[in-house]
């Protein structure tokens, strides 16, 4: 029976070609759309975690209230002790201290007078401890465009675009003018070790990466840091686990009456990405629902057109004594084969294209020139397990559903009028 139906589908292409094309196109679009959105949002979360929030972040409560303003006068003091406590209490996590700062980068001429100057934002991370996780987290070595990585205190990396704007090169001196933790003017000389491409427009336009010990000295922040970031060892954000760690830390260390006591926040809370993360969870359901509804209507229509074309055939089959239910079942079975075949083609093509988009990405840098979002300039898709199911199952379901609705017409055929029809 199955063999017979498959032969029928293969020999009568008008019965299979259009539905297969329809199903495979729909599945293809669903897979690409899902993988692309998945990739963009995963990348956004990843960039945010790497540069801004970690998977969890510890700050003072006062700092947390104004964290987007980099209020280093409200930073966490006694950072070494807090880091050790975190390492003892949550040994599976990777902990690293950071300072974000802003100011001006002043470029001196030969006489030490200002040659050029530009506003700068900076990220101070642990560059020189042997166990520093920052090299992997920030992929520093891979980001170098010119020069080399910093090898000693006093050396910084600067955004390549920013370096071009200020007309400076590796080996030049740059003076940071900023504010100390106590509000005094901070002036500190650095040597440019190399230029980097952060891959985030907001940073490429005007950011530097410095060693945290240098910035602690420059901003009078000894044993102090704005933020302590925690990362899961596999570098994959786990919302449930992060929330659990944050809750346990806050129960133990947060003092509501002391605004300088520490507070831990998770990535979605700190970054405002909670809606995006909820969107990832519901995105699959949304895509599948839209896909099944739209495809069922298309395939229902296609089934009706097929039925009209096969009006005579079904009539003959009824006339020779095949019962309506059997005919209906064979139509459903046919649609199941079409659904499977179309879904396989669509999923294969969709994951293939998505994989290429995962490798090469699409560079939207020219659109992000003025963006201040911590999002990569290159949008990439992400092929995940979900990519293989997001189109495949709905592809089959919608084909069968479409055929089921269209096939109900068989039951409305009156046997008495069949012979009259067949005479025509």
């Amino acid at each position, binding site marked *: 029976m199955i063999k017979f139906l498959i032969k029928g589908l293969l020999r009568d292409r008008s019965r299979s070609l259009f539905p297969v094309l329809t199903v495979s196109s729909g599945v293809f679009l669903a897979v690409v759309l899902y993988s692309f959105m998945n990739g963009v949002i995963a990348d956004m979360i990843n960039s945010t975690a790497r540069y801004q929030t970690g998977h969890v972040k510890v700050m003072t409560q006062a700092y947390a209230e104004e964290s987007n303003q980099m209020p280093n006068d409200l930073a966490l003091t006694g950072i070494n002790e807090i880091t050790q406590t975190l390492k003892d209490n949550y040994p599976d996590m990777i902990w690293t201290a950071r300072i974000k700062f802003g100011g001006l980068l002043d470029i001196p001429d030969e006489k030490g007078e200002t040659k050029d100057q530009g506003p700068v934002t900076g990220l101070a991370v642990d560059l020189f401890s042997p166990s520093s996780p920052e090299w992997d987290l920030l992929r520093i070595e891979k980001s170098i465009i010119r020069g080399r990585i910093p090898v000693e205190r006093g050396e910084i990396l600067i955004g390549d675009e920013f370096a071009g704007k200020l007309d400076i090169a590796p080996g030049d001196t740059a003076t940071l003018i900023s504010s100390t933790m106590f509000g005094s003017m901070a*002036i500190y000389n650095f040597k440019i070790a190399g230029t980097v491409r952060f891959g985030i427009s907001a940073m490429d336009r005007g950011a530097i990466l410095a060693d945290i010990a240098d910035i602690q000295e420059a901003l009078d922040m000894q044993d102090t840091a704005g933020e302590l970031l925690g990362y899961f060892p596999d570098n994959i954000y786990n919302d449930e686990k992060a929330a659990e760690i944050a809750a346990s830390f806050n129960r133990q260390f947060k003092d509501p009456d002391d605004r300088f006591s520490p507070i831990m926040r998770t990535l979605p809370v700190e970054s405002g990405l909670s809606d995006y993360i909820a969107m990832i969870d519901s995105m699959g359901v949304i895509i599948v629902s839209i896909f099944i509804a739209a495809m069922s209507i298309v395939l229902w229509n296609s089934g009706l057109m097929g039925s009209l074309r096969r009006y005579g055939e079904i009539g003959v089959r009824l006339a020779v004594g095949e019962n309506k239910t059997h005919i209906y079942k064979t139509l459903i079975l046919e649609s199941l084969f079409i659904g499977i075949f179309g879904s396989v083609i669509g999923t294969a093509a969709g994951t293939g294209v998505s994989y290429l988009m995962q490798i090469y990405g699409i560079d939207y840098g020219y659109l992000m020139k003025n963006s201040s979002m911590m999002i990569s300039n290159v949008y990439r898709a992400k092929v995940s397990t979900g990519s293989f199911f997001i189109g495949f199952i709905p592809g089959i379901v919608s084909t069968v559903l479409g055929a089921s609705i269209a096939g109900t017409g068989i039951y409305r055929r009156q046997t008495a009028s069949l012979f009259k029809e067949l005479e025509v």
Partner: protein
Amino acid sequence: MKYIALVILMITPAFLFSQNNPSPAEILKKIDDNTISDSKVVISRMVIHGRRGERTVRAKTWQRNTSDSFTEYLDPPREKGTKMLKLGDQLWTYSPSTDRTIMISGHMLRQSVMGSDLSYEDMMEDPFLSSLYEGEIAGSGELLGRQVWIMDLTAKKDDTAYARRKIWVDKERYLILKEELYAKSGKLLKQVDIHEVKFIEGRWIAVSATYKDVLKEGDGTEMMIESISFDENIPDYIFSKASLRK
């Protein structure tokens, strides 16, 4: 040089005018006249009550007329040796640890001086009230046991740092005992309260005041004059960029 505007505000000769009802313009003129001295050398102390506690900054300032000044920070150790030079409307700072002289301009002028409630812009302001403001007497009252005029001042030009001021002027000493500085919108930005006045070298001088940036958290900045001497013979080289590096 650090607190030019405030120091000038705080220093007033004790001319005891006998006029009973001077006009607002005359009062402003007298306040201005009383601030003028050819030169002065001041050692001052600033106690900054910030969000994370307090710290004290000491400095020595050499001032020539009202336009030029040179300040060297004496304490705390981290700031020791930092110097600032103001020549007319230009301001430079020198950091000994980097051996760099940086010109402070543009939005940097709005930054706080040493974390205090004063900004560099406050320091750069023309101290002559009569040239910047038109005033009217809003009333009289008593402050710190002294009879005062309460005056509302309105800026003559749009680009004045504070569009409106309210001042409490000692009727006898022509010394401002309290001041409120407002934005164009009418929002109160800063407030100065004088706590102690002394008679030094024939002048009434406010030796202790609190300067409060009301938009900033904290309890303001206490300004105290430890010593002051007028009409000192200050060599010209002090007011040069070369002296920053010395």
